[in-house]
């Protein structure tokens, strides 16, 4: 996984502060060179010979799966950028405010060149602290962007009271309890929190306390749910793959995002898995360390998910 070019996807509803963050990433002296794929030229105030405009062209794959939409323009652009391999350290993809993140994320699973040479490092969603509450009511894209995020930049915190901020945070947590949240004004945060996140170095998921998800006293988003299942028992790899394949087929259209770390019987390595809708991919990550607990955990974020079926299915994977 290590020699793949990391890709950071920057998303966020209109006016949340995405372009400010992007300009910051490009102008700060971090010693790295990024190829930047933007949806609109002109807003970027920085000279960078690796900026390219994208057209956000989404199309459906001919594989019988209606939710299997990908960004053809991204595939083409990344194909082109790969001809300059070695000339940049990472790729930043900015989406329009109204974009559904699923096709962007799925692009990194579906095309063999893109998935072979690049890896989705993190989906970073910039959120406007003042207006998020309203957007969650009227803009389904805004909710999807939060559900998809690995990192959430909760921006414009100076425009709200501490109580309002707390409320916004709880609303975000109700949709996505797994993302890291950074509170900012003017998208001002250390870039180490945005870049090279290794979101699929999923240790964070393992570190989450189960009650964190189950505590029912705060907001429950009536539309998007998230579940996390874990077990100390070693899993049977064959049973697990058959199960996850089945889950992706049956519940895939409702799954916005899934990720997990698995501990298989007779396998000294951690196996990491991630999915978007019906597309899942997994890979061995590294050996389990002697000092870490061999625990398997998987999280799902989605709509109308059958929690009982998911939980029972996962538990039945024990070897």
């Amino acid at each position, binding site marked *: 996984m290590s020699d793949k070019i990391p890709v950071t996807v920057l998303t966020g509803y209109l006016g949340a502060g995405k372009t400010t963050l992007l300009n910051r990433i490009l102008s700060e002296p971090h010693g790295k060179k990024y190829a930047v794929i933007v949806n609109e030229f002109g807003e970027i105030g920085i000279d960078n010979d690796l900026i390219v*405009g994208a*057209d956000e062209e989404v*199309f459906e*794959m001919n594989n019988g799966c209606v939710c299997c939409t990908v960004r053809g323009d991204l595939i083409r652009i990344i194909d*082109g950028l790969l*001809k300059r391999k070695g000339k940049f350290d990472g790729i930043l993809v900015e989406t329009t405010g109204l974009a559904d993140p699923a096709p962007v994320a799925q692009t990194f699973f579906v095309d063999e060149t893109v998935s072979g040479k690049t890896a989705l490092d993190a989906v970073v969603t910039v959120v406007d602290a003042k207006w998020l509450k309203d957007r969650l009511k009227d803009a389904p894209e805004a909710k999807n962007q939060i559900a998809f995020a690995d990192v959430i930049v909760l921006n414009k915190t100076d425009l709200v009271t501490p109580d309002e901020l707390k409320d916004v945070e709880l609303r975000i947590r109700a949709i996505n309890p797994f993302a890291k949240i950074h509170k900012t004004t003017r998208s001002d945060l250390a870039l180490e929190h945005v870049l090279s996140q290794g979101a699929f170095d999923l240790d964070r998921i393992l570190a989450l306390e189960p009650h964190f998800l189950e505590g029912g006293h705060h907001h429950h988003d009536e539309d998007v749910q998230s579940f996390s299942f874990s077990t100390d028992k070693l899993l049977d790899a064959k049973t697990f793959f058959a199960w996850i394949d089945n889950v992706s087929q049956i519940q895939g259209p409702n799954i916005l995002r899934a990720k997990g770390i698995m501990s298989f019987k007779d396998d000294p390595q951690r196996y990491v898995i991630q999915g978007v809708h019906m597309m899942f991919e997994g890979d061995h990550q590294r050996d389990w360390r002697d000092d870490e607990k061999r625990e398997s955990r998987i999280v799902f974020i989605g709509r109308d998910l059958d929690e009982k079926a998911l939980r029972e299915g996962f538990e039945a994977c024990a070897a």
Partner: protein
Amino acid sequence: MSENEVRSVAELVKSCEAGAHVVACGFLGDEAVFANGEGEIVFASGKKIAAHPNAAILEAVCDGEKIFTCGDDGRVIATNAQGASETLAEIKNKWIDHVALGPDGAVAWSAGKTAFVKTKKGARQLEVASTVGGLAFAPKGFRLAVAHYNGVSLWFPNSDAKPDFLEWKGSHLGVTWSPDGKFLITTMQEPAMHGWRLADNKHMRMSGYPMRVRSMSFSHDGKLLATSGAEFVILWPFGTKDGPMGKDPGMLAPAREGSRVTCVACHPDKEALAVGYSDGMVMMARIPDAAEILIRGPDGGEVTALAWHPNGVSLAYGTDEGKAGVLNL
């Protein structure tokens, strides 16, 4: 077949360094040239021309006198055997993704959703529904196939008539005509190809590939279409009026284990083809009896370009790691 049974002509290959990812290769006169991902035209002699400074060449085609390159600097450049370059087009803040050559010196290129054609008489452009995936001039007449999402537009650049539209759902990338002009074939984002018989627009689906088809080449007589994208060269029969409809493809020149065919180039006048693989190997295979001759052993990298000299005696190849070579039979 074990490896020591395969004849080798590797000693007839002169290797050279192309400096970066070889996007395409060809011959200017008798000298092989390589277009690379750092915007350079590299001659087999070692001469380098910075045709697209600080940019990457995205596609290149060669007519024997000039090599036409397009790049992520938004330019189309023609470079001759002496290394003199001329700018044919420049579009600010855009990539020029594709370039194709037509009759009488016509050149086509595309940037985003727009296809351009430049002839001696002037320039025309055509806007299609989505970003252009590929361009190819018809072998006869003055007609350009423009591949995009959900099909191909067939455009007569000299006419104001609306282009004909061949519809098939999905993202169409590469496009080629059969040498007799009766069939049009596209490679798709899915691991499949699609074809149309132009007499009646009848569809042909050519699927079953484990990976995307990135390279296709018609045999000199037009009877076979060789393609990459599998563990073998896949050969689709186009010798009858039905083309490959209802027929199974042939398979030739198997890859070594774990490797795939990435590049194919049919010989200009014999029933043979050159094959490049993802492990860097280059072979020549005779179509009637599947006899194989090794041209280059597997050596990392992936073969990304192959081109025969029109005389059929020389073959140039290049890899994504900037290795290149010329075979002189």
